[in-house]
């Protein structure tokens, strides 16, 4: 076996990891921005409850999240049953379920970073834009969103990195199926469980470190470019 060539098994796990993490981040980004908006700017009853719910996955054991997802979103779950009946969508034992699990776990990190960025946008600039004839939607798209961009990038990358590393909720909710739900951490777990596969586990460990490091570096570079554009 060539040390520097990835095996098919590793390629499959790596591709699945990236696919799950990317999809989870992209799908949850609009919700993350919406949630951050509500928490930073909203004034409504139950705001602290929403704040608590959003942050819950940060402090709950991942296995609890996986269990709750199984109960709620599984094929026979409280919500999952309807989703299957009405739309034919099922999360159980599929990569879509892995996406859901990692999205839930990574969500608080994303919301925190975006919320912080939003709180740093000066509402006085938004007022100025209104007096120049811009509707609230135009103000959001041309002033608020661009000024939040560094924070959105930071939040996205943090969430992406967390999604790549997710283990507990994924294995509980959608099990460990090679090619379907077996991301790098899960594949590594399988090797550790298997006697005599220490070398394979070590290789996956190196791959995990490399993609994590690479994504953090890209994040830093993007955020710096965005900050420069925003003029900080």
């Amino acid at each position: 076996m060539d040390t520097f060539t990835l095996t098919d098994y590793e390629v499959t796990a790596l591709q699945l990891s990236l696919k799950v993490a990317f999809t989870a981040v992209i799908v949850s980004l609009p919700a993350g921005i919406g949630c951050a908006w509500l928490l930073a700017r909203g004034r409504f009853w139950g705001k602290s409850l929403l704040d608590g719910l959003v942050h819950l996955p940060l402090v709950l054991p991942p296995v609890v999240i996986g269990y709750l997802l199984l109960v709620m979103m599984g094929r026979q779950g409280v919500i999952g049953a309807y989703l299957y009946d009405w739309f034919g969508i099922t999360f159980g034992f599929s990569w879509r379920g892995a996406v859901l699990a990692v999205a839930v776990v990574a969500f608080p990190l994303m919301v925190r970073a975006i919320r912080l960025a939003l709180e740093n946008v000066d509402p006085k600039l938004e007022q100025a834009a209104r007096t120049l004839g811009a509707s609230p939607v135009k103000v959001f798209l041309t002033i608020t969103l661009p000024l939040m961009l560094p924070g959105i990038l930071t939040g996205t990358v943090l969430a992406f990195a967390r999604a790549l590393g997710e283990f507990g909720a994924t294995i509980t909710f959608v099990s460990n199926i090679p090619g379907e739900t077996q991301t790098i951490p899960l594949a590594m777990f399988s090797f550790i469980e298997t006697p005599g596969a220490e070398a394979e586990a070590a290789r996956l460990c190196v791959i995990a470190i490399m993609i994590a490091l690479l994504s953090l570096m890209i994040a830093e570079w993007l955020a710096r470019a965005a900050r420069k554009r925003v003029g900080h």
Partner: protein
Amino acid sequence: MLALNFVKQLGQTRLDVDLRLPASGIIAIFGRSGAGKTSFINIVSGLSKPDEGHIAFGEHVLCDTWQGIHLPPEKRRIGYVFQDARLFPHYTVKGNLLYGNHGKPDPELFSEVVQLLDISHLLTRYPASLSGGEKQRVAIGRALLSKPDMLLMDEPLASLDLPRKQELMPYLESLAKSVSIPVLYVSHSLDEILRLADHMVVLDQGKVIGNGALTDVWASSVMRPWLSAREQSSVLQLKVTEHHPSYPLTQLCIGPDLPLWVSRVRRPAGDMVRVRIHANDISVTRIKPVQTSIRNVLPVTVEGIEPHQYHADIVVIRLAIGTSILTANITPWAADELNLQVGDKLYAQIKGVSLSQQDLA
């Protein structure tokens, strides 16, 4: 005409306004800090909502709480220049200038405004690299380019240091001459107001205590508390009649056969200029002086005599000349010795006249 009638509770102060303002010219909103000036124009702009009230610009109703009308700021066509410029940091100067254009820039207006404010060399720069005065000029241009029906300016000079103020002032003066829309100019600086405004509203603790042409409000007793004895003055709007053939002097006309000589004004005959005459620079005499160094000796009628509110050593006399009123400070001793009475015909000797609106030509 701009009709404003509203109330709003601001902490301890109750802002209570009922005003009719002209639909052109620079309208100064004057008052000390905390008088409600900024809240006043925020309500006009739509950024804040009155507790109840009616605001209309001509036929265009901007706000009427009884009919449930409250147009959002973007629908009011009112430009706003904030004290702190508020340029968008992620747009270039040009991007900022065009923001209010909805993607339909008017090249003619654009070059006119850029020229008026002298910002053509800044267009590609970002706001972070501009000085305070430059930022404020861009902010003014940005508001003008949104083609507003009215312009609000909230102390545009207040956050600048003195050299920057002096740098920006000429731009404001040329703006004042060139705009056709009404400008509500909030300020607590009488100097700025004298140089720019035509009309003046005085706010004190949320109430309007003075409203009218600047020269009238200035001549009324409303302004007394704001002026020290040294600053007590009359402001007159006068017509240029002729220039002296051999001396650098210009003759202004206070009334028929009432010439006032001031240092040379570079304006053609017929133009109006604003002058300020300090009350300490006027003395009075019963007999027309002869062979005096003072050039301006004019017949006046005493219209009022009253001791100064805060200074026991000053008697303020109001002197009618033509259609104008001059204020003079004299000592109580002089007032007693001359036995001044309302209706007396006197001669006012005017030692100094300052021009409060610079000739820009």
